[in-house]
């Protein structure tokens, strides 16, 4: 992994039966940057996202994620299939078996990567605050006895979690909705709550899947302010998929363009804006024009 990169993807490919959704995608995401992933519909953006966040197990390639002072191999923690080498080394066999039994998507999050969803997935019948408390599951006192006896340590941990939750509610301007059901909030509020919830897991890389979809221009402007604050004040690296070009060009440091499952261009916004390949992918072009 080269210097200053939080995420490194090497020759990633993903197949669904005969369909090749991703083919040999290699990319890197720099620390403390805002990186956007764009491309026409069906280009494989969400598939790539799901591979990175551990919801799909990629069919080939490697995803290395460097955060919280350690390096995580996303495909390994998902519990990949046994290989011939595993049966020769007991240690490798044990680790493979461990990840098969107890591994999964949650380990990717625990490694420091949080995500939001294209179609909002909140805990709709729980209050806004409870949504944020669930996200802090790993930072509170989880002992059964401590909780049942309501010990001092338990109460202190809960209090800290509540304070952290209120901190993020203020950051996304939802304090007044703290005691409402998440499902009752307006669409824009739900989008912001999802970001706050993802941030409550204390990630170092935040993946946003179309955060501005369905927002009006004012809300989009507020969103881009929030994303910038995340990067500047909280030292979070942001990777986002977005169709709103105004937002993408305005906030991102680096843009990756995906088309037909392949990375066709990458670079700063100014370069991407004039890249003939990107324009062709979005607007369509004749074969000979491209050549």
């Amino acid at each position, binding site marked *: 992994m080269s210097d200053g990169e939080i995420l490194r993807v090497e020759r990633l490919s993903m197949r669904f039966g005969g369909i090749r959704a991703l083919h040999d995608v290699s990319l890197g995401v720099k620390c403390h940057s805002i990186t956007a992933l764009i491309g026409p519909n069906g280009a494989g953006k969400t598939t790539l996202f799901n591979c990175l966040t551990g919801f799909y197990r990629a069919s080939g390639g490697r995803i290395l994620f460097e955060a919280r002072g350690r390096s995580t191999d996303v495909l390994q923690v998902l519990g990949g299939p046994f290989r011939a080498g595993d049966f020769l080394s007991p240690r490798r066999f044990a680790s493979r078996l461990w990840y098969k039994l107890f591994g999964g998507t949650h380990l990717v999050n625990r490694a420091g990567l949080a995500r939001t969803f294209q179609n909002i997935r909140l805990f*709709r019948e729980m209050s806004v605050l409870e949504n944020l408390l669930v996200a802090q*599951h790993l930072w509170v006192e989880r002992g059964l006895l401590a909780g049942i006896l309501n010990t001092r340590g338990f109460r202190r941990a809960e209090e800290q979690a509540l304070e952290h939750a209120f901190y993020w509610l203020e950051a996304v301007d939802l304090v007044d909705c703290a005691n409402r059901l998440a499902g009752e909030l307006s669409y824009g509020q739900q989008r912001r709550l999802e970001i706050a919830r993802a941030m409550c897991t204390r990630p170092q890389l935040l993946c946003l899947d179309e955060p501005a979809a369905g927002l009006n221009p004012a809300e989009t402007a507020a969103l881009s302010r929030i994303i910038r604050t995340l990067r500047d004040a909280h030292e979070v690296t942001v990777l986002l998929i977005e169709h709103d070009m105004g937002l993408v060009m305005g906030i991102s440091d680096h843009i990756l363009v995906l088309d037909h499952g392949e990375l066709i261009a990458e670079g700063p916004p100014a370069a991407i804006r004039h890249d003939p390949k990107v324009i062709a992918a979005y607007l369509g072009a004749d074969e000979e024009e491209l050549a």
Partner: protein
Amino acid sequence: MAEPSLDIRQPLLDSLLAGLIALVVFGPIVGVVLDGYSFHLESSRVAWIVGAVMLGRFLLSLFLHSAGGRGWLQRLEGGGAGVQVLPPEHRSHLRWLLPLVLLAAVVFPFFAGKYLLTVVILGLIYVLLGLGLNIVVGLAGLLDLGYVAFYAIGAYGLALGYEYLGLGFWSVLPLAALMAALAGALLGFPVLRMHGDYLAIVTLGFGEIIRLVLNNWLSFTGGPNGMSVPAPTFLGLEFGRRARDGGVPFHEFFGIAYNPNLKFLFIYVVLLLTVLLVLYVKGRLVRMPIGRAWEALREDEIACRAMGLNHVLVKLSAFMLGASTAGLAGVFFASYQGFVNPTSFTFFESALILAIVVLGGMGSTLGVVLAAFMLTVAPELLRSFADYRVLLFGMLMVLMMIWRPRGLIRISRRGFARRPGVAP
């Protein structure tokens, strides 16, 4: 409404329609009386019935069209729809009820006869079962149709433990909870990766397997003949008139008159304490991270995984805790009956417990307690309707699904006071 006065036309129309239907339904049945080979008409009886139906429908319709009735109807339809978040400083209006209920529970055995005592014990056993299943179905959202298996493990744990290991009530009580939890873990770990319908089918199968094993392993469990269960003891003192092996029975030791109900009184007291303990634990669990994780899992499993929660372990913990509660209930059931056999652990029992949870409201503690008593005590009071019990259940369920799909008691969530902000 545009007109403030009562609209009389609609109630009249409703009443006329109801009268017509009543005429069609009751006319041939009540009005035509066979008399040998001929028949005679009893028009006055029909007129009475139809008149009563029309009057009733008219009054009902009139009430529902009045302002009060409309409000009532709206509450009925809208009230059960959702979940509410209580304000942080909320205190229930019914707080005074709790000590009263506790007092009643303490005073009750002094006045109750044996029959009433056993009915209440049965009710409390189902409260325990309902609370346990409420964790699995109501909180974690895992449909478990074989819950009775864990109940059977508890009951047979006591019977078999006494038969082969000489264990008594007190040593089996915690052991049964552990064993049931272990059985829950063994069943749960491979199958909890499935969701919804598949899980329901697997648990249904598990419940039947346990029952069939108990039924067919004649040499070990006694098969359909069942097994006898020892009466519980208090610090080694027995509750019979004469103690075995030259021991001193309870009443002689304390110098009180012999009371044949002593065994049930004792079970009642221990069971009541256990139910109170489980109620307390349940109340704490929903305020703890694990309880929040269960509910989050019920709401959205994928989001849970994205939050770093290991969904299999979270489900497993719900499954194990629910199972251990059923194990406890099983021990009480066995010692209350003094005998166990597999017919007590059929699928109908699972369905009954599930009905308690659904009727009470998924995740609502108070609702489950009320529903458990309703579904166990009501059939006792209505002995003459015993044949129609299941029919009544069915009708009750249909009515519930129409008007109160979320259960009897509206679910309310805890609100949190605002903490001083540390805005970025």
